[in-house]
């Protein structure tokens, strides 16, 4: 018996996990379609474009929070049958990883395509643009954007193995601390280079496109992608590194 990875055993584990959490996906899908129905009703009642609900943001939040959605918490009473189940730690991690990193994004993309399709076929054309916006987002998904979402998601993946309770709040707080420290390091680094003569600020939009800027410099570090440290941290280290950390943490959890 292979004690690290056996495809047959992994398949059984994935089916078990999927069976456990699939009702949640049905619930999320139902809520999503419920919101869709409300936006369409709004559109017909007020004869305008649909109520401004961003299904794209809804989808991105679902992907980022997927590790929480596919997890029921670790405790000394509730997790016994999971930890004593004859599958390797790697397989148990891989099952969670597949649900969060593959299944949830696929679910969200299919969901968004369905919503976009439905908007576009609604009679009267009032919802046509809303559908186009979703399609536009999906068509313009870049590697950087996917990596950025993965990076945020990987924080929550680590979080479910590090924290036993209040995972969402603890991870959110950790993210804030992480980015504050990150900003501090960036500012110190930047001041050293420009001898402290620059006025530096930082802010962010969802994709961090103006995370840090130097108002005095013509060669300002506008945008996330112009800084190699930010780029590497968010696109490479965060998802891959945190996946490894998650696996190592899962291996050493005692209950």
């Amino acid at each position, binding site marked *: *018996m292979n*004690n690290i990875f*056996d495809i047959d*055993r992994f398949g*059984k*584990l994935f*089916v*078990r996990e999927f*069976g*456990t959490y699939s009702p949640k996906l049905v619930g999320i899908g139902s809520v999503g379609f419920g919101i869709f129905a409300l936006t369409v009703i709004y559109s017909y009642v007020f004869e305008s474009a649909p109520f401004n609900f961003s299904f794209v943001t809804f989808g991105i939040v679902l992907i980022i929070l997927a590790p929480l959605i596919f997890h029921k918490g670790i405790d*000394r*009473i*509730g997790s*016994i*049958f999971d*930890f*004593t*189940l*004859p*599958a*390797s*730690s790697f*397989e148990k991690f891989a099952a969670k990883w597949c649900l969060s990193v593959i299944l949830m994004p696929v679910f969200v993309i299919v969901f968004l395509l369905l919503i976009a399709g439905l908007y576009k076929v609604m009679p009267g054309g009032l919802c046509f643009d809303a559908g186009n916006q979703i399609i536009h987002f999906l068509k313009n998904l870049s590697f950087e954007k996917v990596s950025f979402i993965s990076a945020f998601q990987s924080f929550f993946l680590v979080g479910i193995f590090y924290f036993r309770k209040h995972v969402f709040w603890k991870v959110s707080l950790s993210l804030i601390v992480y980015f504050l420290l990150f900003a501090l390091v960036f500012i110190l680094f930047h001041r050293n280079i420009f001898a402290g003569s620059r006025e530096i600020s930082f802010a962010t939009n969802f994709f961090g496109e103006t995370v840090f800027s130097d108002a005095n410099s013509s060669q300002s570090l506008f945008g996330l992608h112009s800084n190699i440290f930010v780029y590497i941290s968010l696109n490479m280290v965060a998802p891959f590194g945190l996946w490894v950390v998650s696996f190592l943490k899962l*291996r*050493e959890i*005692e*209950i």
Partner: protein
Amino acid sequence: MIEINNLSFYYKKGKPVFEQVSFEMATGIYGLLGENGVGKSTLLRIISGLRFPHLGECKIDGTDTFRRAPDTLSKVFYLPEEFESPTIKINRFIKDNAKFYPNFSREQFEAYMSDFEMETDRKFSELSYGQKKKVLISYGMSLNTPYVLLDEPTNGLDIPSKAQFRKVIASAYDEDRCIIISTHQVRDLESLIDPIIILDRNQVLLNNSVEEITRKLIFKQTQTKPENAFYTESNLMGYSYVGLNATGEETTLNIEMLFNAAVANRTTFKELFNI
């Protein structure tokens, strides 16, 4: 075989649960006895890989349990005293989980459930604590794992169910199996358990078969208070006592008396049973 070598474990530094404990368990229905907090449940958790030794090792068939290797886990079933049962139907739980255990027998599961007068098409959420325990005992025994760890299995079972439990364990036991039952309810299991392990203050006080115990100790009833007994208890018929078996007399083991005698004479018992 379960091998525990120089095992040390603590939850808080300076307050060891186990300190340099070594013993082995092969086959049999082991009774794991000890006062509250001596580490019975912790020992079962270490054996099942849920807790890791701080020093020393705990191995099942030569593999460290802390590795949680699938082939080791597939040899062990652990039923904790407290558990959170799933909310799904029993049949679904069996379908999802039993496939990981190569020797699971559906027929056995149904037979044990029938012994406990339980139906398999009910939801866990509809069952009482005792009923959930019956399902999990039936499931655990029908997995046919060589090692079964049961933590206070008779807690929560009603009086008829305790007899059913003994029947299930007796029918599931074969000479290649090691069933470890941690319990305070020794009277429920008196006729079932052999050998007996008594844990006490970071150490093993006794780890012997019933035959070895009754060869060295006598369990008797007398009208007058006996002298030189390890432990004496007065009752309506006089005195029950545990004493040294100097004449090779065969008496019936009373586990509760044995436990009290062992706890009251720690050093003597360790010397007597070569621990």
